[in-house]
């Protein structure tokens, strides 16, 4: 398992390739990449704040939970903080398993929990000013799927 919380950009493709080569007993790798989406008003920057003392630990807890629920070979989570622009990669999750069902379910689960349980907050600055992104009820509801 690798969990990285960092300000620097990362190359999702290179990370995927490295992650996929960790074992010859892996048949399925699922990745999720979250990108800064342009918004109405024209996104100038996205600022991601986090809670340093808690972030990594909260993510590791979520990953351990996923590993207990599904048969996984490995898990990778990278999440950036700081200032980003439209098109930038915010974060990625990758899961590997013998079979695709485990890899898909675990990646989906990890995203739902990272979204609502890892201490990150996004602030968008557009031509219309700056505002914090609201937590969505549907994100909270998504946790009930598991």
């Amino acid at each position, binding site marked *: 398992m690798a969990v990285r919380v960092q300000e620097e950009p990362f190359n999702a493709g290179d990370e995927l390739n490295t992650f996929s080569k960790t074992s010859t007993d892996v048949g399925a790798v699922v990745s999720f990449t979250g990108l800064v989406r342009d918004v109405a008003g024209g996104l100038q920057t996205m600022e991601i704040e986090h809670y340093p003392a808690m972030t990594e630990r*909260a993510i590791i807890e979520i990953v351990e939970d996923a590993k207990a629920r599904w048969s996984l070979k490995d898990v990778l989570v990278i999440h950036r903080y700081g200032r980003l622009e439209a098109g930038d990669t915010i974060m990625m999750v990758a899961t590997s398993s013998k079979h695709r069902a485990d890899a898909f379910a675990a990646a989906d689960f990890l995203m739902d929990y990272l979204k609502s349980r890892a201490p990150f907050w996004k602030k968008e600055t557009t031509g219309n000013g700056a505002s*914090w992104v609201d937590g969505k009820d549907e994100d909270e509801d998504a946790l009930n799927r598991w």
Partner: protein
Amino acid sequence: MVDVLYFASVRERIGLPKEQVETSAATVAELVDELRAKEERYELAFSDISALKVALDQELATFDAPLTGVREVAFFPPMTGG
């Protein structure tokens, strides 16, 4: 004495990221009541605690949780990572 941390919109409303608070509050809710009584910016920041989350020593908790032995309390809006 507990360290009290504020993040995102809560931090902006209160105007600082962290402070040390002398408190004898038994629960998070009691601590919130003490903070609200301090100044209007706190009153504003905590006007609707159903829209806020709290972590005790870096673990998510609820507002009725006891503060016994807790060294760090953090208040913030719902997370929006991912």
